[in-house]
C-alpha cells in the first residue's frame, strides 16, 4: 500500500513538473503572455517597398510595441504592398494623419513598422489606411545611389 502511494505521488510530481515546464515555455519563453490582448483592431498601410518585413513583425510607437503585422498582400493595380497592422485596443487614439515607416532594428536585425503620430484631432478608426508611409530602405539601392553620386562627383572635378 505504501509502495503504491509513493509511486502515485512520484507520478503526480512528474506530471506536474511536465506541465509546469510547458507552462514556463508558454509564458516565459514564447510570446503567449502578449497574446491575451491580441484581438485588437486592424489598420492598413501601403508601401512601395516593404523590404524584408515579415508577418507577425512588431508595430511600435515611440519604441513601444503596440501591435503586430497581421497580413502582407500585394495590390495588383497600384503595384504596392498592402500591410495589415493589428493594433491593440488600448492604443485607440492614433491621430488620423499618423505615418507608418519600416525600419530595421540594429544593423542586421529584423524589420518592424514604426508609427509616428500626427497632429490631427480625429482618431483613426478600424480599417483606416495610413496616408503617409515611408518604405523600407533597401541597402543595395542606397549603395547604388551612393556609387552613382560618387561617380558624378568624380566627373565634376
Amino acid at each position, binding site marked *: 500500500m505504501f509502495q503504491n502511494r509513493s509511486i502515485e505521488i512520484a507520478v503526480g510530481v512528474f*506530471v506536474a*513538473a*511536465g506541465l509546469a515546464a*510547458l507552462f*514556463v515555455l508558454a509564458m*516565459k*519563453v*514564447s*510570446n503567449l503572455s502578449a497574446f491575451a490582448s491580441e484581438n485588437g483592431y486592424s489598420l492598413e498601410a501601403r508601401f512601395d517597398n516593404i523590404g524584408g518585413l515579415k508577418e*507577425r513583425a512588431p508595430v511600435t510607437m515611440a519604441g513601444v510595441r503596440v501591435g503586430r503585422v497581421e497580413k502582407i498582400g500585394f495590390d495588383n493595380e497600384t503595384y504596392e504592398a498592402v500591410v495589415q497592422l493589428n493594433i491593440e485596443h488600448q492604443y485607440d487614439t492614433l491621430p488620423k494623419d499618423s505615418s507608418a515607416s519600416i525600419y530595421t532594428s540594429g544593423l542586421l536585425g529584423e524589420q518592424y513598422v514604426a508609427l509616428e503620430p500626427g497632429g490631427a484631432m480625429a482618431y483613426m478608426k478600424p480599417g483606416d489606411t495610413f496616408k503617409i508611409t515611408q518604405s523600407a530602405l533597401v541597402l543595395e539601392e542606397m549603395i547604388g545611389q551612393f556609387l552613382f553620386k560618387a561617380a558624378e562627383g568624380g566627373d565634376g572635378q
Partner: protein
Amino acid sequence: MMGGLQRLGRSALLFFERLGRGNLFLLRVLAGLPSLLPRGHLLVQQLYSVGVLSLLIIAVAGLFVGMVLGLQGYYTLVDFGAEESLGVMVALSLVRELGPVVAGLLFAGRAGSALTAEIGLMKATEQLSGMEMMAVDPVKRVIAPRFLACVIALPLLAAIFSAIGVMGGYFVGVGLLGVDDGAFWSQIQNRVDFFDDVMNGVIKSVAFGFVAAWIALYEGYDAVPTSEGVSRATTRTVVHTSLAILSLDFVLTALMFD
C-alpha cells in the same frame, strides 16, 4: 544466382509480413486503450517506470545541452555583436528540434529498451500465454497501459528537457558570459511563438512517443522467446526507434516550418 534471388524474395516477404503484423498489433493496442479507463492504476504504474525513472537523465541531458548551446552560440554570435540573440538561438533550437528529438532518443535508450526486454522476457517465460490461458487479454492488460504511458510521458519529458535547457543556456549566457539579462528574455519572447514553435514541438514529441512506444512494444511482443532473441529485439528497438525519430523529425519539420 537463383539462390540469391530467392533469398531476396524471402527477406522481402518477411519484411512485409513483419510490417503487416506490426500494423495489426498497433490496431489491437489502440482498440485496447478504452479498456484502460476503469483501470487507471495500471497506467500510473507504467507512468512511473517510463516517465519518473527517465526524469534524471532527461533533466541532466537538458541542462548540459542548453549550456553547450549557450557556450557555442555565444562564441559564434559575439563575432557579429549579436550576443543578445543567444537566448533566441538556444530557445528556438531547443523548443523546435533538440527538445523533442534528444528527449526521444534518450527515451528510446532508457525506457524503450526496458519495455522491449520486459515484454520479451514475459513472452519467453510464458507469462503472456499464461494470461491468455486465464482469458486475460495481454494486449489490454500489459501492452496498452505501457503504450499510453509512453505517449503521455514523452511530451512531458520533452517539455522538461526544453525548459531546463533554456535555463542552462541562461546560466551560461547571462551568468557566465555576461549577456544582458533583460535582452536575453525579451529577445526570446519576441521571437518564439507559442503555436508555431512550442506547440509544434509538443506535437512532434507526441508523435515520437507514439512511434517509440509502438516499436518498443512490438519488438518485445514479437521477439523470439529466447534470451538471444530478447537481446536482439532490445538492440533493434533502440536502433529502429532512433532512426524512426530522426527521419520522422525531418518529415514533421518540413511539414511544420515551411
